[in-house]
């Protein structure tokens, strides 16, 4: 916390080797974001105060690394760093590595907490040059944090883009009781209490110690954070019965009463990203149209090409792509609410459920590839998705999304429009239906319902 040990001449922005922490001036930051966030809305934090506050980025520790998990922060907020200090331990696909800083400064804010992951290049912490900059950095951290969809444990419903959606949960829970006038009194807190305070972001100085000699015990911190003490931590902690309200930060910001016996499971990174993207759709005006398709010909065709490795997904994607060629407006994007962006490529994203989450691998240029190539490509993408090796452009470059629940017998459903795209098509099961044809004869034909959710601005 010793501000005078800081060097003020640390503004060289040199290219850092891959293993040292990439610190760049915040103005230069344009980042590949976490999985689902569509690229564009990231402008808000181009800060004017440059160089005084640097962002610490998730470094690329290997050529194959796309995201990293923070194993632990070696330094805490408020620690003074000098060049070469290890700051954070990052787990890549291969190993855990310490990451060093290239600058002197004060670690002002940790944006991505321990145990969480962030894509390569995303800010994970903020480095202030002097003590005066800390407050500013922390304010910035808040905005960065809310923008970054990677914060996992109960992810705050994020609202960084103009129409605020779920702004009811401010990131730092306000300290419960501010015990004032403790002045210069020394605060004694046990190691576990300090850890818990950090973990739950409780200001340790605001807690009244009830332990021996007035020290702050883990139970004090938990009480302050509104958590039921965990009994397995230490035998000395009695299994206290008071069932305090489960959490001060319920998962989705809802204030529904907690049902006794329920358990809270934090969202995974993917789940929180999905939730975030779904929330965004609420700010987009959409309308939905449905259209039945007789699929006998399709079924016959599928039977024919199936032995050659062509999948229904590929056929649907190809069909969609060919239709999009004729109707480019459906393939357009509206990013800022003012302009259309006509995409020259037709990239069909296909929603896939995976490990309790959802991802949309993209069949790029689906109009140009033939069915066999598309099928092959699709197989490859699914494999990558399963092993979490999809590159960002392989899941966020879609211009139109296809979602098919037909295989589960679902006959129709409503798909949620992904951010930034013009339309998503929900495909239901095809099943035999009695139809009256133009001649007035009844026939039994297979019919499938396609339901299109469209962006009102675009279409």
């Amino acid at each position, binding site marked *: 916390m010793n501000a005078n040990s800081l060097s003020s001449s640390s503004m060289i922005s040199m290219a850092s080797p891959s293993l040292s922490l990439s610190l760049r001036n915040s103005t230069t930051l344009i980042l590949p974001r976490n999985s689902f966030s569509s690229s564009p809305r990231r402008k808000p934090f181009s800060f004017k105060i440059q160089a005084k506050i640097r962002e610490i980025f998730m470094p690329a520790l290997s050529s194959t690394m796309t995201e990293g998990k923070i*194993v632990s922060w070696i330094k805490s907020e408020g620690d003074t760093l000098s060049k070469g200090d*290890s700051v954070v331990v990052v787990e890549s696909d291969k190993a855990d590595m310490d990451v060093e800083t290239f600058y002197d400064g004060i670690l002002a804010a940790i944006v991505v907490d321990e145990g969480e992951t962030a894509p390569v290049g995303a800010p994970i912490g903020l480095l202030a040059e002097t003590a005066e900059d800390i407050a500013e950095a922390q304010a910035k951290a808040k905005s960065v944090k809310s923008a970054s969809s990677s914060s996992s444990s109960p992810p705050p419903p994020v609202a960084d883009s103009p129409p605020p959606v779920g702004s009811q949960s401010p990131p730092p829970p306000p300290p419960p009781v501010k015990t004032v006038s403790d002045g210069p009194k020394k605060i*004694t807190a046990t190691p576990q209490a300090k850890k818990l305070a950090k973990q739950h972001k409780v200001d340790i100085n605001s807690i009244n110690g009830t332990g021996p*000699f007035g020290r702050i015990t883990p139970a004090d911190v938990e009480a302050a954070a509104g958590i039921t003490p965990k009994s397995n931590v*230490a035998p000395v902690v009695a299994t206290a019965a008071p069932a305090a309200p489960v959490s001060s930060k319920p998962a989705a910001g809802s204030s529904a009463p907690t049902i006794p016996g329920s358990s809270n499971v934090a969202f995974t990174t993917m789940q929180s990203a999905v939730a975030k993207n779904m929330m965004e759709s609420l700010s987009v005006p959409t309308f939905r149209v449905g259209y039945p398709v007789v699929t006998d010909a399709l079924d016959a065709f599928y039977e024919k090409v199936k032995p050659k490795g062509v999948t229904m997904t590929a056929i649907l994607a190809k069909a969609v792509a060919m239709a999009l060629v004729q109707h480019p407006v459906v393939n357009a994007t509206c990013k800022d609410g003012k302009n259309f962006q006509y995409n020259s490529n037709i990239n069909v994203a296909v929603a896939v459920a995976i490990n309790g989450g959802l991802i949309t691998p993209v069949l790029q240029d689906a109009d140009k590839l033939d069915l066999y190539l598309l099928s092959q490509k699709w197989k490859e993408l699914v494999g990558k998705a399963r092993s979490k090796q999809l590159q960002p452009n392989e899941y966020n470059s879609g211009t139109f999304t296809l979602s098919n629940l037909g295989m589960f017998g679902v006959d129709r459903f409503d798909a949620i429009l992904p951010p930034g795209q013009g339309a998503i098509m929900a495909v239901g099961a095809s099943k035999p239906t009695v139809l009256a044809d133009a001649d007035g004869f009844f026939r039994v034909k297979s019919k499938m319902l396609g339901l299109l959710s469209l962006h009102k601005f675009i279409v």
Partner: protein
Amino acid sequence: MQSSLSLSFSPTSSATTISRSHHSFPLSTGTKPLNLRFCGLRREALGLGFSTSLNRNLHQQQQLPRRQYSAVVSAARSDNGSSSGSSFDYDLLIIGAGVGGHGAALHAVEKGLKTAIVEGDVVGGTCVNRGCVPSKALLAVSGRMRELKSDHHLKSLGLHVSSAGYDRQGVADHANNLATKIRSNLTNSLKAIGVDILTGFGTVVGPQKVKIGSSDKIVTAKDIIIATGSVPFVPKGVEVDGKTVITSDHALKLESVPEWIAIVGSGYIGLEFSDVYTALGSEVTFVEALDQLMPGFDPEISKLAQRVLVNPRNIDYHTGVFASKITPARDGKPVLIELIDAKTKEPKDTLEVDAALIATGRAPFTEGLGLENVDVATQRGFIPVDERMRVIDANGKLVPHLYCIGDANGKMMLAHAASAQGISVVEQVTGRDHVLNHLSIPAACFTHPEISMVGLTEPQAREKGEKEGFEVSVAKTSFKANTKALAENEGEGLAKLIYRPDNGEILGVHIFGLHAADLIHEASNAIALGTRIQDIKLAVHAHPTLSEVLDELFKSAKVKEHASIPVSEPVAV
């Protein structure tokens, strides 16, 4: 008749017996079956091969013709240049019956020396009574507690355990019982082979003369080994009351489990106790004078160890500070620890804790040994010795027939190192020159998971390489890739090999992971025997075992055939 009986057993005991019987006189063969080359504890099991009556016979035989026997022995060693054997009470007198003295005594008897051991306290010394042994009992408990409390870990194995608890007295008794058992094993093993145990503090009163206890009993011996060991080091300003400010001696009795304990020193003693205390529910604060925790370990290992053994546990730490003053809890006040900056000596902080464990290392126990009588001046209490453990006097000259092994010489303060040094001395006094390679002696820290090491750390190796002009390479393997470790759900760990790529010499091996302490011996044996990587990498390891971690480690080393690839700078240090 007795001797012929004995002889028939002797080939089973060890190969050296046979070879040595060639130049032995018939009378001395009676002692042959005593040639147990194994450490005392193993001897018990081997001893089963002997009938009890035979044992008694042997015992008698050795007791009765003492004078005669020792004369014979010295005659047998006449090539040693020793002619005055009969004028001494013993061939070898060892002061201190710790692990070092015990190892030396066993080997001396094997070599046919008439041996006595002087002990002023209890047989077994620090290791058995106040060190390695009882601490292993506590760590066995802490390891199990940890497993039982780790819901997450158990769940991933599909196990449910309701709640784990412990009974402090039960744990303490386990440690105490273990020490008692090992102590009696050790005592019996000495008695069984006829080593005289002389009770009382030994004082050197002149060359080859030792006074036992406060009596005027003077014993003479041809050679004397000082093996008096060490005691916990307590820095000045620290007031030890044995209740709230304690050393490892007290802590091992586990008379209390404080809610919050400060551990001064983060070496292996401090680290092991932090493992015990946190498993039993205490919170721990480390106070370390150096800038980093676990300063004695290879930096990479200590970093990993910190990540696994410190950060996730209820431990915090202050580094770069001295505990300048520690006051025990009294008058309704907690234990107070005043911290000063290790460099500037300025006051930094005051800690208020429930207890403090002083684990700042160990100080040699050499006072009152009468060293001034042979003109030896200790250095910070340590007895200066050369590489053959021969004591050096104040003028830098060797003191004839006086040796010092173990913690008292400070070369390597480990029980097994003391024992190895003792054996080395016996080899020398029986006419075989022997210099112990300390770089082949492994060390282990029995945390969960364990840490072990042998040879040089990476910085030491690089420094040596720079000085002597050779290249140093590093290979690493992870426990994450080991089937057995993963089956145990204990994939956290790293093995690190430091070697010379030009000739395949192993410079050091460091392991952090499940059963690391048991795994290190493949490496330490390789160093001791001079085995090169290119040879050991062809050895076969059973699958699936943890030993494959080392197998893979050796295989991943790149011994030069093609052009040397300079080691890329150590990553992430």
